[in-house]
């Protein structure tokens, strides 16, 4: 378990940072929703202003999180821990399969 992750039975929360250059646009949001939907736990994603249902593409894309934005992912339910871990990996490790700003700059060169 990473630091900063709160784990109780059936409850899990983590803060992540969007690292891909283009932010949480349509395709990343779809990937997020697809993974979130594989879990029983309810998933809420929030920035400073609003909170979105992590299984709703409509609400997730409305977050319009750009690169560098910090989001809080909260899951509640039996598989909350696994759900949060999978989503954190998608955002911070895989970067939705998209380049970071540095990688993008390198590609242009």
């Amino acid at each position: 378990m990473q630091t900063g992750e709160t784990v109780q039975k059936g409850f899990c929360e983590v803060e992540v940072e969007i690292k891909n250059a283009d932010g949480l646009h349509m395709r990343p949001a779809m990937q997020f929703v697809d993974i979130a939907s594989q879990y029983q736990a309810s998933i809420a994603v929030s920035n400073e202003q609003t909170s979105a249902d992590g299984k709703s593409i409509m609400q997730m894309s409305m977050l319009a999180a750009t690169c560098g934005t910090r989001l809080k992912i909260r899951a509640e339910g039996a598989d909350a821990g696994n759900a949060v871990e999978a989503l954190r990996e998608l955002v911070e490790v895989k970067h939705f399969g998209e380049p970071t700003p540095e990688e993008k700059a390198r590609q242009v060169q």
Partner: protein
Amino acid sequence: MEIKKGVAVSPGISIGKCLVIDAEDYRIPRRSIEPSQRLAETQRVRNAFRDAIEELTGLQDQQKDIGQRKIRDIFAVHLSFLRDRSLRKKITDLVHDESVTAEFAVSKTLRDTASDFAKVKDSYISERAADIYDIEHRLLRHLLGGRRQDIQQLSEEAIIVARELSPTQTAGFNKEYIKGIATGAGGRTSHTAIVARSLGIPAVVALEDITESVTAGETVIIDGNRGIVIIGPDDTTIQQYLEYAVEYTEMEHRLDAIREKPAETRDDVRVMLFGNIEFPDEAALVFKKGGEGIGLYRTEFLYLNRDTEPTEDEHYDAYARTVGVFKKEPVIIRTVDLGADKYTQSRRYVREPNPFLGLRSIRFCLQNLTMFKTQLRAILRASVLGQVKVMFPLITNLQELMQAKMILGDVMEDLDEEKIRYNRDIEVGIMVETPAAALTASMLARDVDFFSIGTNDLTQYTLAVDRGNELVSTLYSSVDPAVLRLVRTVIQDAHKAQIDVAVCGEMASEPESVMLLLGLGVRKLSVASPMIPEIKQIIRSVTIEECNKVARKVLGMNSERQISSFLRDAARKILPEAF
């Protein structure tokens, strides 16, 4: 109770519950439903989502090529929205909490979502608003598609209220249960009006925001004689209208009694009265009303409401059924008049910037020879069954006429080779419905056996007025001095060339125009079947001398308003009940 004034296009009175049809490309008005309908309405929302998902999945599977990855991505976005439970819940909650129709809830929720998207600063997101509108469209299409099915499978009497009805919609009408029609758009000669008249369904059009004023299932009265629609009438009004409806039916029966009598003026001039039809079934109605043949068989309906173009045998069957009703009388089959507001299977989605001036009617046929020849073969084959004549629409010059005749000749040769029988001397005529044809009538007359004046298009093209556009439809009048001058020219030129001339446009079905047409020298009229008795009654009540006088007076008048009020007065003196 709310009274709305529109344009009366098909006579009769009907009282009943309304069925509202929305259009997907038009703003869906807020419409309430009974609380008891909420469950069924939320189920419709779910069905629409299910059907849209199914449709999109199918479309996505077709885009297998790598080059089409972009399209596949777009579909994937749409699919994930359609699978979004919170979106669906928002819509069903709206239906449930505010008792509104599925259409309204879908449209409102998605449009609100789209405008939220449009406000987002990130252009990646804001540009997605267009996709949301797309999804709205798709869902509405499924919802309204279901509604169209409902109309075809109607099992109780209803009055149809819509902004406008497309030929495809009316072709699917279950005549037995549709008691009245009220539309927001349209005019006297709009498609809805023509169909309503030919089916004998009372109709009022040009009612502007009618679809926003009614609640589904509400009682409405359609007064197709006075052009009035009453929404939610009180008991006294309903009683008055029930009595009025009885009176009107009695008058109709009196008119039906003259069925056996000839259409002859008081000074013994014989006039031939034919019926206009769209479907073979209507030929029987024309016969029942006392028509002496079919003056205009519109064949477009063979092409509508189906996925493939009709085969030669399907054409032939329809014609044979019609000729079966009139074995000795003339049956004039007009070759297909598609384009403009009616499309064929292959061209339904091709938009032209100016369809009424575009590739329509005979022009379309001359560029689609296979389709044209299929129809001509069927007409020729049917020609041995009775007195079939062929008529080409929208001719604008001699060259088009010669081309059409040449193709008819080719088809005849083909039939000769195959030893298939047909009437070699089949009469060939044209619709005179463009100013160009009217002005060159003397030239065209040499190469045809008859003219039929199509006053609807002739008026539209002469006055440059779209007959279906309620913003300018008041300018549309077949008794405008400009139109009348052209009509007179055509009649005179036909007489000089000694060929037949008939009037088959809506003008011939208008009681107030009959004296004028007779006075101009017309002796053949082709009208909507429900109008046959009334027009016959007028013919039997006048003398040609009176008619000549009316025509002379009218030709001396210089304003449409003056002419129409003069004609109305003249007709009122003859047949007071109808006005």
